């Protein structure tokens, strides 16, 4: 006679069919020797679940109206019990989700797991990656502060460059003619309903395909994928395999648990992000910066040549997504092991190197002028102390005319233009005059901004910026004036 609990379980199972439906999935055979490489996907899913839980919690307090969003964020940070922690966990698990989905995609790419017969799993994964980035961008806007306000403005400026329909797209994006209440509500709708809904909608077939096609075995050099023989070989590997539960399931669970703990540690140590200044567009001193995920893009937009910029903004994302989507069709067969796919390895290295360098540059932002250097960063004393009155006048011009916002002295000041500590060893007197008056490179022409006396004083000051005893540079023009 079965026990009472057993009978209850049986009663439910007869109706739900859990044992016949779920157990085979849990215990479906996987190839042996997967190691710890296969844990990133499930950890991404864990992060997504944390996003949902903390997101729902935030949504019951956060006010998605432009008039009150900022106040409700401050309330969440300072007054709502544990509000700061849930905001922090939401932010850091978003970070975790972007990191882990990138690792997951990289692992799948490097191990050739996107090849036959898993092309559709990869394609769904590409859309999941895009949705994750979409969630990151829209979430950043819900943090309705100065960065959010101008961040939407930057998004609108980019969308506005689309030929013909650009302005219409901008108005759809903003929910009206300008950034305001309807913009926030639109992004709230996207972030809370549309994008998570689409993510779940695509996650279901993604996971279904993982089970249906089976987990790919560890790649081995010299064992290429051939659609004609693949199924038979995989059957053999599965026959010698082991059930997913408990050992490989345990690896996923352990890694996910570690990720959750790391997220909590980060959340407690660093707290929630923002909000920064209020979303008041008349606070003109704003220096908007995107969240870290978009720093490489921020850098790319600063560094691309202006005449190519629209093309880069509009075509680069399309090309990148197209390559990702088409990848399994032009590389769906053949070797899987990275040792036999040097181009694939090189592409990954270059990609991460590029993103890393661009991200670092985006963080330092040397192209951004230091808006307060002209008044806040004085000329070093050792430069000023040896100057004549005219040169001192020039130093004052240098400071007052905001040259310092773009030019450093002794490493202090803006990095937009070259450091001028030793400029007089590079440019002669006449070259300095020409550069000041006509500008050039990335420098505006100061011809109309300065009186002749100011130019003379400024250039005599700049002429002192060299090491003692170094010869002056000579230019053909200077020689001519002597003759």
């Amino acid at each position, binding site marked *: 006679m079965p026990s009472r609990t057993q009978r209850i379980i049986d009663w439910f199972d007869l109706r739900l069919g859990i044992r016949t439906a779920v157990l085979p999935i849990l215990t479906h055979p996987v190839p042996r020797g997967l190691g710890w490489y296969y844990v990133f996907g499930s950890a991404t899913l864990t992060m997504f679940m944390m996003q949902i839980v903390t997101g729902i919690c935030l949504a019951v307090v956060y006010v998605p109206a432009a008039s009150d969003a900022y106040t409700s964020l401050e309330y969440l940070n300072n007054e709502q019990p544990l509000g700061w922690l849930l905001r922090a966990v939401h932010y850091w698990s978003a970070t975790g989700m972007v990191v882990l989905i990138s690792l997951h995609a990289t692992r799948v790419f490097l191990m050739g797991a996107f090849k036959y017969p898993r092309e559709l799993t990869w394609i769904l994964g590409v859309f999941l990656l895009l949705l994750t980035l979409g969630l990151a961008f829209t979430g950043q806007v819900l943090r309705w502060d100065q960065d959010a306000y101008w961040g939407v403005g930057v998004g*609108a400026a980019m969308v*506005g460059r689309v030929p013909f329909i650009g302005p219409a797209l901008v108005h759809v994006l903003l929910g009206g003619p300008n950034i305001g*209440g*309807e913009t926030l509500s639109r992004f709230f709708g996207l972030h809370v309903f549309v994008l998570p809904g689409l993510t779940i909608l695509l996650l279901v077939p993604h996971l279904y395909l993982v089970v249906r096609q089976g987990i790919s075995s560890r790649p081995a050099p010299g064992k290429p994928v051939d659609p004609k023989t693949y199924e038979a070989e995989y059957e053999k590997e599965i026959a010698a395999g082991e059930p997913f539960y408990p050992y490989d399931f345990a690896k996923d669970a352990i890694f996910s648990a570690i990720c959750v703990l790391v997220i909590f540690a980060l959340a407690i140590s660093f707290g929630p992000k923002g909000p920064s200044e209020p979303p008041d567009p008349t606070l003109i*001193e704003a220096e908007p910066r995107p969240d870290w995920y978009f720093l490489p893009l921020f850098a790319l937009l600063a560094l691309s040549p202006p005449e190519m910029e629209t093309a880069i903004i509009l075509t680069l994302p399309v090309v990148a997504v197209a390559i990702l989507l088409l990848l399994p069709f032009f590389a769906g067969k053949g070797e899987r092991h990275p040792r036999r796919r040097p181009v694939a390895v090189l592409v990954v290295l270059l990609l991460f190197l590029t993103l890393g360098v661009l991200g670092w540059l985006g963080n330092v932002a040397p192209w*951004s*002028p230091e808006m307060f250097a002209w008044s806040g960063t004085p000329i070093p004393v050792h430069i000023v102390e040896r100057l004549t009155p005219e040169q001192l006048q020039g130093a004052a011009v240098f400071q007052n005319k905001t040259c310092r916002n773009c030019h450093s002295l002794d490493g202090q000041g803006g990095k*937009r233009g070259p450091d001028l500590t030793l400029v007089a060893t590079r440019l002669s007197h006449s070259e300095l005059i020409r550069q000041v008056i006509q500008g050039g490179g990335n420098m505006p022409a100061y011809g109309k901004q300065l009186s002749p006396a100011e130019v003379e004083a400024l250039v005599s000051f700049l002429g002192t910026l060299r090491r003692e005893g170094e010869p002056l540079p000579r230019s053909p023009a200077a020689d001519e004036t002597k003759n």
Partner: protein
Amino acid sequence: MSEHESRSPKASGAAAESPPNRRSALGWLSVALGALATTAAGVPVVGYLLSPILRTPGDRWVDLGPVEEYPEKQTRLVDFVDPLHRPWDGQSERLAAYVRHDEGEKFQVFMVNCTHLGCPVSWFPQSGLFLCPCHGGVYYQDGQRASGPPPRGLYSYDSRVVDGRLQIRAGRLPTLQQPG
């Protein structure tokens, strides 16, 4: 039942089904009605979401105060309430502009948005330049592009002087293809 039908169960099954033309009519009806219902439900949804395109309120004139508040040959930062704002816009209902009073009734009123990617530019009267903090775009005092990545000069508002008061036409976020 005829003798033929009673002997052959297969044939009797086929006879019990509807005639083929009625089946295909039902099929077509379900497709047609389904399409109609989907359109009926879908068109308002799409129209609702795309309404910001269909309903494009034009810019409206905004008063920026008496002309005397703007000294000649100077550039001043002013703020005003977006004439197209929603009641729940909060602080984002406010907008800022740079007013440059050339002389007499000649004004230039610039939008604060950099023409590169829309960040707010700062005015430096000392050097007579607008600087953008994002990617280092620079503009001269008359709004012309001076250097950096901006593809054009600053966007400007239409302005007029009515009864000694400065007015500008404002409301829409400027973008490259729809500057004013």
